[in-house]
């Protein structure tokens, strides 16, 4: 950790061709310029991806600080650091932040950054939509957090059960912020997911057929399809909630024949698939990155890809396991209980595939590797506690205790935070061109791992000892004191680990060793470009012949077979353009002109932000104004451009 090092970790040239004459042309076509306007107008998936990751991390810190404040309050019985209302807002905002503003967006960030690089394309299918999904996410996050600073944050938990969230029991604006905020955020998720789906179908390098997709792509595509199918449920529920609160409807209000349980059904029909959407891409990150550090391909590519999809499919049929104690007849519940047990099988496939990869590989003891190994263990702990709650009879005791809190943190942090941090260590050289420090990294892992288990392992015991969740304090004499103190200490230790990680990031970005194109000697296409990659990703679009284009020479089972081509291929340089392929077998079938930088997405987000503020404050004039503005942006967005040609000659670089 001394002076700025200059030696590259990987001194080689990028494996992809980047002929200077082509590169200059593409740079001119794709470059977005500098300055404030360019910053707001960017449609580069890499810039957007990084912004997603950074923003999500800021929310992680905010949610984390909220958690730490709660942990001070809970460290001893009958503490009075917080009053009950403050505590309610804290745990609600903590849950909402972590689930909605951190866990999915951070993965969207990774996928946004990595997908076109992994798939051998120059951008996502809809770059402007991509920018829109980021700006909407940011705007919805600000919208939700605005309430915090006026002291009226959501205060009915992250799933805001009715009737507690209806007007008579929650008269303030707290739950309006929640309902409108989630609808708003849902727009971001929906456009983002649609973009991933179309990108997968059309924006791949020639030859990148379905059986060659990296597992991250499988994870994100599964999550995106699930989002498209699940998000409308919660948006609808939130719309109904808002109508019940402001327009006197009776969807949930029993006074007029409404049903409190309708909320729970709609919420969990969304909620359960969603929790898998929060982890499948993260598991994909591990499935792609762990093998690199084990120096071999992933064991069981096909079963792992299939189990990703299977988890989600079953995941749509288990939502009632969140409602075991609501009085639904046990016979119906038994079905959902059994289905929840079944979901462990695809997870087991993943777990054993990772272990096998480690066992049969040659492990390099790097920081990402440590995080991934830690992840496997934490996933299993979180998974088996999920299996315990899947039991109908047992859950009649476990539900709404700290056992559930333990479960959800083991799965959420274990399968989301740990892989994400490991993945940042792994892809940081690609993002920035520099390495993060390994020694600090190992310490960071140690502190985080110990802190995490210290914080959340005792929660299982607390749950089994009968501590209910969402209590702002607990009485003496129930035996919860000592364990809660340990939990609080662990939480702060974990936070220290997070702080070390942040230091590592800053240090790496400023003074880390120069990485070179492929410092880990990894097999996939993103490592064939420079670090960081040029704005157009690939000067020459690659031609893919296997799952591991950069390892082919060394591990190919079929030496006679075709080889991927990285230095010859399509050289689309007649404008800002890239290639579209057929959905299944990835044959080139269209040249796509890509839109340049534009302020439209940012403007649309501002208009929608104003619209939602108008709805929140019942300012009709603002709604009208914002609606008009949004419509104007949309008209500009979709307005037909004078088409030049409908065919173009193909240009090839050889």
């Amino acid at each position, binding site marked *: 950790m001394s002076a700025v090092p200059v030696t590259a970790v990987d001194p080689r040239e990028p494996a992809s061709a980047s002929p200077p004459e082509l590169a200059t042309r593409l740079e001119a076509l794709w470059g977005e310029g500098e300055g404030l306007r360019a910053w707001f107008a960017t449609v580069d998936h890499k810039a957007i991806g990084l912004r997603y990751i950074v923003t999500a991390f800021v929310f992680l810190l905010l949610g984390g600080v909220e958690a730490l404040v709660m942990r001070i309050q809970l460290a001893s019985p009958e503490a009075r650091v917080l009053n*009950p209302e403050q505590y309610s807002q804290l745990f609600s905002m903590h849950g909402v932040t972590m689930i909605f503003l951190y866990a999915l967006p951070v993965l969207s960030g990774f996928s946004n950054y990595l997908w076109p690089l992994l798939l051998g394309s120059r951008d996502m299918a809809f770059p402007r939509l991509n920018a829109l999904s980021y700006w909407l996410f940011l705007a919805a996050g600000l919208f939700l957090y605005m309430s915090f600073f006026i002291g009226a944050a959501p205060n009915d938990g992250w799933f805001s059960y009715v009737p*507690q969230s209806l007007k008579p029991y929650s008269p303030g604006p707290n739950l309006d912020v929640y309902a409108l905020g989630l609808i708003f955020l849902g727009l971001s998720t929906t456009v983002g997911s649609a973009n991933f789906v179309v990108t997968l179908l059309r924006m791949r390098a020639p030859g990148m057929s379905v059986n060659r997709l990296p597992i991250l792509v499988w994870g994100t595509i599964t999550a995106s399809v699930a989002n498209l199918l699940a998000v409308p449920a919660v948006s609808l529920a939130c719309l109904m909630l808002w109508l019940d609160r402001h327009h006197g409807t009776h969807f949930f209000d029993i006074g007029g024949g409404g049903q409190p349980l309708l909320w729970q059904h709609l919420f969990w029909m969304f909620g359960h698939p969603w929790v898998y959407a929060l982890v499948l891409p993260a598991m994909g990150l591990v499935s792609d990155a762990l093998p690199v550090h*084990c120096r071999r391909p992933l064991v069981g590519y096909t079963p792992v890809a299939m189990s990703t999809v299977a988890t989600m499919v079953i995941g749509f049929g288990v939502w009632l396991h969140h409602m075991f104690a609501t009085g639904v007849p046990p016979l119906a519940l038994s079905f959902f209980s059994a289905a929840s047990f079944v979901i462990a099988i695809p997870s087991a496939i993943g777990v054993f595939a990772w272990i096998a990869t480690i066992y049969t590989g040659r492990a390099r003891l790097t920081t990402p590797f440590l995080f991934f190994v830690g992840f496997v263990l934490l996933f299993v702990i979180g998974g088996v506690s999920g299996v315990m709650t899947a039991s109908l009879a047992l859950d009649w005791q476990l539900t709404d205790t700290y056992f559930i809190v333990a479960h959800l943190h083991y799965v959420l942090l274990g399968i989301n935070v740990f892989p994400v941090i490991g993945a940042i260590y792994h892809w940081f050289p690609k993002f920035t061109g520099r390495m993060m420090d390994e020694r600090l990294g190992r310490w960071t892992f140690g502190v985080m791992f*110990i802190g995490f288990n210290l914080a959340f392992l005792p929660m299982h015991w607390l749950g089994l000892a009968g501590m209910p969740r969402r209590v702002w304090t607990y009485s003496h004499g129930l035996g919860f004191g000592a364990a809660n103190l340990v939990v609080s200490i662990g939480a702060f230790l974990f936070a220290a680990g997070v702080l070390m990680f942040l230091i590592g990031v800053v240090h790496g970005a400023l003074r880390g060793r120069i990485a070179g194109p492929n410092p880990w000697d990894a097999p996939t296409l993103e490592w064939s470009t420079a670090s960081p990659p040029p704005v157009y990703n690939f000067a020459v679009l690659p031609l893919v012949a296997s799952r591991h284009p950069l390892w082919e020479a*060394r591990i190919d089972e079929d030496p006679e077979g075709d080889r991927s081509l990285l230095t010859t291929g399509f050289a689309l340089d007649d404008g800002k353009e890239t290639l579209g392929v057929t959905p299944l077998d990835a044959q080139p079938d269209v040249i796509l002109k890509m839109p340049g930088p534009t302020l439209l997405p940012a403007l649309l987000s501002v208009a929608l932000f104003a619209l939602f503020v108008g709805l929140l404050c019942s300012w009709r004039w603002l709604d009208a104004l914002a609606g008009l503005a949004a419509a104007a942006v949309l008209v500009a967005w979709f307005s037909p451009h004078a088409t030049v040609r409908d065919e173009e000659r193909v240009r090839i670089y050889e």
Partner: protein
Amino acid sequence: MRRRPGPVALLMLACAGCARESTPMDYMHGAAGPAQMPIQALAQGFTAICTAVVAIIAVLLIVSVRRGIREQRNDGDAVTPGRNGMPWIYWGVGLSVPVLLAMTVWSLLATRAVATPPAAPAVDVEVIGHQWWWELRYHGDRASDIVTTANELVVPVGQPVRLRMTSADVIHDFWVPKLGPKMDLVPGQWNNSWFQADRAGVYVGQCAEYCGVEHGKMGIRVRALPKAQFDTWLALERQPALPSINRGAQVFGQACAACHTVRGTGAGGIVGPDLTHVAGRLTLAAGMLPNTPTARMTWVAHTQQVKPGAQMPEVPLADVDRAAVVDYLGTLR
């Protein structure tokens, strides 16, 4: 991978600490009746299985990591196709499936065992949730036999008790861990549940569904009495309060009667708990205070400190009046 002596030691310390404190709400031990017995067995069994699964996976991970590192040290870290790892998946899944199947069957059997009471319930109680206390109604043979009380469910030992539950406001959840499953109290809907206390004693419970700011202080007590004592208790509860004309009763009539009922007097409010025999209960304010004269004073004088946000205001009273009304409460046995 390094092991972690630090947290293990600390954990053991913590658990040792916890073990010394008693945990009246834990459901891993001391099941007190047939609605909980099978669940307790399930809880212990599943915990054992799952701990074993975690231990096995941890061992496999350690072995794999050590072996992986050894390979790398010995053979360098050039990329290889690697040995066939598929048997891991076959064996892993092949062994997990029967275990999961067995767990599913066990769980379903336990569900069946606790879903319905073994005998026709002897006592039938309506439980109505309020923010943040419990209204309890015992029905007798005649309509006038109805007994309304709060926060302390008194039951006979060794007999199944049926609970019919709903809520007056938001969703609550009735939970007394040592006696049996949780059940939500959902407004607009009657949910049934049952339990049976096989040992006399006091069981601690708590509302388990978030129901607003004081959700954490919505405790419940179940007091199981031998049948004869239970009958005496019920007969006593059926009696109205003795009429009284002292200062305390007057103050109560002015300051408290709008919210509280004391049967046999003019006080007929229904916002708060029925106080006809409040002094006979073990605790006050849904389990938050012991029911002693001092605590009654604390409650009336500092309601919002004991239970911030509670639906009972700190009624402004002159000190003498407050003392009088607290004395009066003490006479309501």
